[in-house]
């Protein structure tokens, strides 16, 4: 399974929750597969999906799922200690770890080599860290949502992309639509 297969699998589970989606292909794929007002698409700023999601979870009570990638977490490694030390039980960080920088041509990341993001998250103090295979992601995510415990999920999947159009929605429209969904 590649990332878009994982997103297609989990779409019915994340649809009813606030989702902050990583820059590039992940946002474009989610937008194509299941556009929702509860989705916040990042059009720029690699690395900050987990930070935006944590800030959102700390500021209000609804459940928040940040969809991130291994490359983006590597870019913003400082996020993991911040998450560990500011526990928000309405927060789930889903790292889709395909061992590559998918949006830029599938160059390998260190997470696909020696570095284990699962081990790093645990070393940073994150208490509930679950590594799973792509096919298990939906079930693991459902359980994490039901547990009401802050959870980091590292989903190991294959590298690869589908052809998707860019998102042409205006950023202020994305943000405004999302904020109305947060308040609804």
């Amino acid at each position: 399974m590649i990332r878009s297969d994982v997103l297609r699998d989990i779409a019915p589970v994340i649809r009813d929750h606030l989702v902050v989606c990583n820059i590039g292909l992940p946002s474009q794929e989610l937008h194509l597969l299941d556009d929702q007002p509860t989705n916040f698409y990042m059009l720029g700023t690699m690395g900050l999906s987990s930070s935006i999601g944590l800030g959102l979870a700390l500021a209000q009570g609804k459940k928040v799922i940040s969809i991130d990638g291994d490359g983006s977490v590597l870019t913003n490694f400082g996020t993991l200690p911040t998450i560990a030390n500011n526990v928000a039980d309405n927060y789930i960080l889903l790292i889709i770890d395909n061992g590559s920088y998918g949006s830029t041509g599938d160059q390998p990341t260190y997470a696909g080599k020696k570095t284990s993001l699962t081990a790093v998250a645990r070393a940073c103090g994150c208490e509930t860290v679950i590594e799973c295979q792509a096919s298990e992601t939906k079930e693991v995510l459902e359980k994490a949502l039901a547990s009401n415990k802050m959870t980091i999920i590292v989903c190991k999947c294959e590298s690869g992309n589908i052809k998707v159009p860019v998102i042409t929605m205006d950023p202020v429209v994305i943000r405004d639509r999302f904020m109305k969904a947060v308040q609804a």
Partner: protein
Amino acid sequence: MSIHTKIVDDLVANDISFVTTVPCKQLAGVIDEIEARPEIYHIPSNKEDEGMGLCAGAFMGGKRPAIIMQNTAIGVTINTLATLTQFYRMPLPMLISYRGELREPVACQVEMAVHTKALLNQLNIPTYHFHKESDANELDAILKYTFMCNKPVAILTDASFWGGYGDQ
């Protein structure tokens, strides 16, 4: 009233309840005061762009955020300011310690000080410079302006404003 208390009183009076900080010696008193206030959730960040991500999320969650950092952070956060805070039109008061100005003991700080205002200007970020303690009387109006126009706004606070660096 200390200047630290006055600054944090203004934040609280403007309903700012989510503050992220990356420390600077000059800002230590303000950071202590923020940590002590029950009205504010204080979340230290490891890097300033991470902090701006946290603030963006908190804003979309209905809280008014602020970031406290050194001017060296402008070099770190230009992409985030342009592609997140400005692109999505989000308000962000940035209380910035303006290192490398008069009374600065560390030469390297001057290297970013000389770029600070030029970079903020290039980004079209409204910028205020606190040099004397009485300049802080404008903070309340600056905060109101920030949340009126939904922009990042810089408040540079130099060593003269803080009364020097003490024993450093």
